[in-house]
């Protein structure tokens, strides 16, 4: 077991390393970093200064090593726009994105799981077919379009909810969180729903598939033959069997949520790392782009690893032999 974990860790590390290489090469090789970093009006002295500062006259591999060294120390370069270490800027804005991602995750489970359950238990009924058809919409619709729709209906037409920005925040453990205030919740509502839609459709369909696969199984029939109440049959026997893949997907999709927040944050002007990266791309703030990509990839790989381990632990068919 531990060998397997160590193996996976090595793999994960390898992936991150490859990513650093790809990112570094992409950003610093394609396109001219000198042109990117130095304003055309700078004079010769200014140019030299910047070249020395960013090590742009060094051979490429030296630049890469310097980059790696800095990365390990947590220094991924200095943002052109903000003048501060890129990582610092990102971490300042990370709580906003995490708040959004967690809310969206919760919404998608709270809506997707029950609806998927219903659609799976009564597959031939009209409302089940309606639920499934709607779920197709859920993952076909580009999320920016849904965002626009939400703004149109709830912010412009009905005027119930604000259309952009983040609400009041409360500082908790050094992080600024907005879901603890009413104003914060009002601002969080639309972006969170927007981000949640794709995930809800995925979870819904997955749950339904799981249910329709489990229901005809012999052990469900046997449970009924024992006289177990239908509620328990569904709530325990069926649910426990579908939870494992569902939980896995929820975990994996969390990384995707962080990535897709790029879109939602742009529409709703949510001050998270997603908006940051779009802005950075538009002004070509290279260090920021690099730092963002590195962070997100690392996050991704970590989440995948954790999910893999969790899966091993959760499935009794795999783990019980090891435990007992």
């Amino acid at each position: 077991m531990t060998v397997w974990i160590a193996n996976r860790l090595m793999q994960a590390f390898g992936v991150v390393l490859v990513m650093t290489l790809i990112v570094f090469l992409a950003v610093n090789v394609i396109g001219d970093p000198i042109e990117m970093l130095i304003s055309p009006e700078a004079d010769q002295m200014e140019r030299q200064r910047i070249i020395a500062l960013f090590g742009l006259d060094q051979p490429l591999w030296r630049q890469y090593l310097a980059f790696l060294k800095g990365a390990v120390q947590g220094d991924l370069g200095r943002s052109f726009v903000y003048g501060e270490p890129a990582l610092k800027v990102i971490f300042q804005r990370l709580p906003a994105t995490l708040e959004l991602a967690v809310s969206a995750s919760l919404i998608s489970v709270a809506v997707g799981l029950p609806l998927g359950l219903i659609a799976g238990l009564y597959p031939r009924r009209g409302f089940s077919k309606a639920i499934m058809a709607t779920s197709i919409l859920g993952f076909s619709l580009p999320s920016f379009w849904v965002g626009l729709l939400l703004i149109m209906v709830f912010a412009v037409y009905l005027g119930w909810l604000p259309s952009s920005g983040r609400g009041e925040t409360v500082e908790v453990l050094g992080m600024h969180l907005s879901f603890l205030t009413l104003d914060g919740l009002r601002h969080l509502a639309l972006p969170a729903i927007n981000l949640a839609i794709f995930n809800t459709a995925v979870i819904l369909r997955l749950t339904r598939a799981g249910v329709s696969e489990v229901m005809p199984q012999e052990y469900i029939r046997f449970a009924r033959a024992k006289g177990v109440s239908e509620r328990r049959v569904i709530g325990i026997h069926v649910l426990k069997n579908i939870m494992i893949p569902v939980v896995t997907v929820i975990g994996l999709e969390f990384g995707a949520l962080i990535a897709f927040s790029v879109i939602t944050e742009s529409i709703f002007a949510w001050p998270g790392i997603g908006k940051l990266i779009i802005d950075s791309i538009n002004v070509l703030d290279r260090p920021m782009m690099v730092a963002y990509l590195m962070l997100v990839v690392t996050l991704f790989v970590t989440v995948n690893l954790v999910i893999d381990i969790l899966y091993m632990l959760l499935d009794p068919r795999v783990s019980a032999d090891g435990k007992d």
Partner: protein
Amino acid sequence: MNAPAPQAAADDVVLDVRDLKTCFPTPGGRVMAVDGVSIRLRRGRILGLVGESGSGKSVLGLSIMRLLAEPGFIAGGEIRYGDMNLAAVPDEAMRSLRGKRLAMIFQDPMMTLNPVLRIETQMVEAILAHEDVSREEARRRSRDALGQVGIPSPEERLRAYPHQFSGGMRQRVSMAIALLHRPDVIIADEPTTALDVTIQSQILSEVQSLVERFHTALIWITHDLSVVSRLADDIAVMYAGRIVELGAVDNVVNRPSHPYTAGLINSLPSRNRRGSRLQQIPGMTPNLLNLPQGCAFRTRCGRADDACIREPALLEGPTSFRRCFHPLEGSLEGPLEGPLEGVDA
């Protein structure tokens, strides 16, 4: 809701199925999987229900338990249990009977138990579904039940998961669960088909002793005549949804009246002499959507003639009830030595 214990009838009939019909609507038409079956089950007796795949024997068992999968439904007849008609009682009443007064065991022990729940959970819930006792009490009874069916170190086994048991053990667990409430009727649907022959005999002996001890009535559904001839008191042979022969085991097995029954017995390898060709029943099991008119066995029967175009009724004969216009009289050719061979005693 607690089901009242059934009144003991004059001849102690605990389950009285009358002209039961079960229907499955299919795109090709309506299939009568069970077409007018009547059987009477007596306390402490074992009824062997024999037939090929598609004969309706499993569906009969499921119909009695009201566990039919959609779109199947009971289309007619009665299932009298005590003063109730099981075919008509409301769902909740049926649920409270299942597991408590009527129990069922299925064929594939691997899939009968939920793979992600511990044995303990699955047994305790069976108890708590019908009785308001404490968890510890339920647990204790589960442990005792495991011991009763011959499972060693039951205390540890309770905490285990199904995949940690062998096939035979799992089937014993199913039996233990079936016996938890000392039901009046147990329906066992091919419980040993998926097991090794040696395990099979162990389970058979186990079942016999349990049935004697608790006076349970047992319906043992199988396609294997040799198994049931050792175990059952009475045999019912099913073909195309109907019972074609019904009687005491010795009579049916040694002096079959219906040509189909004779065919089944003759096709057993143990009944044939070494070196000679195995006997078979010609033709194939009928398509239930396209049954021959009259006697369903007509097209495969060596004794069929024009008279068989009318549907025969199940009539009493000298040795058993049979549904045939040309029943066999007398005993089968060949040496007869009591129960069929095939399973080691």
